[in-house]
């Protein structure tokens, strides 16, 4: 075991899969340039030395092209791991992901597989409104795409490896402030022991990050950690939060969520992605449609205001839901 950051864990997952399967390759902007950055977050740093520039393929700044080319290569049996630096840039590539990646298998009598992995950094991190958006809800709305959102190094590695081996297009969301050392003051240190031995985490299984009997909290990516921090504080007051990390939105592990709410009778979603038509609304609908009678209190979502992401730290802090917000809401529900 060694302590790894999310960035290191992701890099290791890529390298392991690339060693085992020559079909796996990376494609994106500034990912393999000698003396360069290893992508916007250093994740692919050093990989071109081991795997060469054919397999760590630098591209022009052309996201629709990147996504489309990756889709084409995937159809032929390659296993591209594509990235577009910041998730916000993926809007340029939306057509390829939604109209092609998510649909070509359906149109081909199942003769086509699109084993595409798209790595998508999301979340607020001090870069202003066009470098801060969350896209996991948006893409979870599209049938034909799997949606993966790891919150820890362990999950990031095991899930990415599964995503690379998956024969379907998988959108893997990574939160910028969880990567580790990325020169951001606000970054969380979530590094942890990660086994050296190979392991996989199946796509579609939620993880109970903390057990508790009083309220079910569902978080995703960075808000999992927000929930865990709140849980620690609330424990002192005798309130036990159960923190569920769905880890994948599509397919969603409904069972784990429902089981938890059956036990606690209460649910709060904490979400960095905009609330309206978001994944939290989906979870609330799941719970209220399926186990309405188990609920002892109204469900509740905590999230940002419905605004673009502002730049100044004081506004950014206001924008992102934090443990104070969660603790306040818990108090209301328990009180």
């Amino acid at each position: 075991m060694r302590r790894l950051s999310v960035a290191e864990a992701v890099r290791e997952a890529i390298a392991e899969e690339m060693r085992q399967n020559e079909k796996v390759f990376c494609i994106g902007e500034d990912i393999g340039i000698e003396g360069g950055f290893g992508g916007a977050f250093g994740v692919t740093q050093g990989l071109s030395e081991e795997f060469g520039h054919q397999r760590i393929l630098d591209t022009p700044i052309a996201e629709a092209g990147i996504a489309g080319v990756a889709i084409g290569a995937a159809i032929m049996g390659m296993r591209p791991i594509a990235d577009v630096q910041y998730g916000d840039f993926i809007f340029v590539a939306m057509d390829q992901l939604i109209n092609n990646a998510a649909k070509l298998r359906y149109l081909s009598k199942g003769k086509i597989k699109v084993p595409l992995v798209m790595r998508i950094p999301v979340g607020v991190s001090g870069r202003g409104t066009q470098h801060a958006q969350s896209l996991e809800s948006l893409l979870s709305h599209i049938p034909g795409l799997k949606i993966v959102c790891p919150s820890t190094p362990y999950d990031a590695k095991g899930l990415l490896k599964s995503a690379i081996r998956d024969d379907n297009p998988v959108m893997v969301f990574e939160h910028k402030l969880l990567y580790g050392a990325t020169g951001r003051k606000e970054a969380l240190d979530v590094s942890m022991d990660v086994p050296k031995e190979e392991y996989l985490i199946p796509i579609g299984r939620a993880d109970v990050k903390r057990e508790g009997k009083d309220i079910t909290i569902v978080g995703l990516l960075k808000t999992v950690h927000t929930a865990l921090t709140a849980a620690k504080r609330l424990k002192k007051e005798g309130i036990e939060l159960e923190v569920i990390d769905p880890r994948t939105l599509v397919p969603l592990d409904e069972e784990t969520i429902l089981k938890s709410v059956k036990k606690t009778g209460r649910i709060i979603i904490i979400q960095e992605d905009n609330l309206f038509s978001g994944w939290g609304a989906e979870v609330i609908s799941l719970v209220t449609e399926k186990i309405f009678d188990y609920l002892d209190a109204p469900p509740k979502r905590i999230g940002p205001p419905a605004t673009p992401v502002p730049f100044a730290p004081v506004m950014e802090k206001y924008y992102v839901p934090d443990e104070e917000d969660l603790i306040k809401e818990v108090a209301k529900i328990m009180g």
Partner: protein
Amino acid sequence: MIDKTKISPNKFIETYTTMVRIRQFEDRVYLLFLEGEMPGTIHLYQGQEAVAAAVCANLRREDLITSTHRPHGHAIAKGVSLRSLMAELFAKKTGCCEAKGGSMHMGDMDVGMLPAIAIVGGGIPVATGLALASKMMHSGKVAVSFFGDGATSEGAFHEAVNMGAIWNLPVVYVCENNLYGASTHQSKVMKIKNVAERASSYGIPGKVVDGNDVFSVYEVAKEAISRARKGKGPTLLECKTYRRGGHSRSDACRYRGKEEEKVWLAKDPIPQARKKLVQLGVLTEKKAKEIEEKVKKEIKDAIEYARRSPSPEPEDTLVNVFVGGEN
């Protein structure tokens, strides 16, 4: 112009037959459509047969093509079975997309044709990716992307052709310039005369060819494809042509000048090809008739097949979303 020594008589006849097959298929589909036997919409290919036929005549079965909202001709030329195409138009379970796609998404991976992509320009990056994989896997396959003049206004065209160029990929970009994107004349959407000029932005060859002359298309396509296969990179091929009918369904083409139509409709690629083949002694009028009769039977067979094929079950909707587990 035509160098008989370069093409075998069989190839001549085969390519000509493909054109006839496409024409008859489209003519028949048009009627069936008007009679209401087919749901949805259609974009027909009459007038452009020489392009699909001549380009695909130079491809191997394992080579790949991407197509557009107007895919029937490409599908027939690449070898998708007439039965499965007709069945798809009839929305039958035996269709090439199992009735999930319809006219605009025809294809069959077994003969190297992706389901057609009906988003204008959307297939060009995908074709480039097919070629990238071919290069990475050393499979020797060539990818051809068919698209219209209108598609070259899309950003996807620009991004993809540039990538094909810088990586020297085995791909040929075939623009069928039929002068219109839907109702919009080329002159309204570009200041240049030839789409092929855009190749210079990417540092690759751009070629203009008479798209109604199957022999000319054959020559340049052969060259571009073999260039691609040899690892020398992509070519942008502009085939000047004209669609004989409307853009889709019930379009009466009132936006096209009568004079222009007259000139172009006179340049029908099929009689043109037949005449030359007869001159060359490769074809006789009798043989030509036989081909037409043979193709007629094929089409009839396809229609009967489609008619007697079962409809999909409603629940088939749920199938083939994800590999390994539906939904």
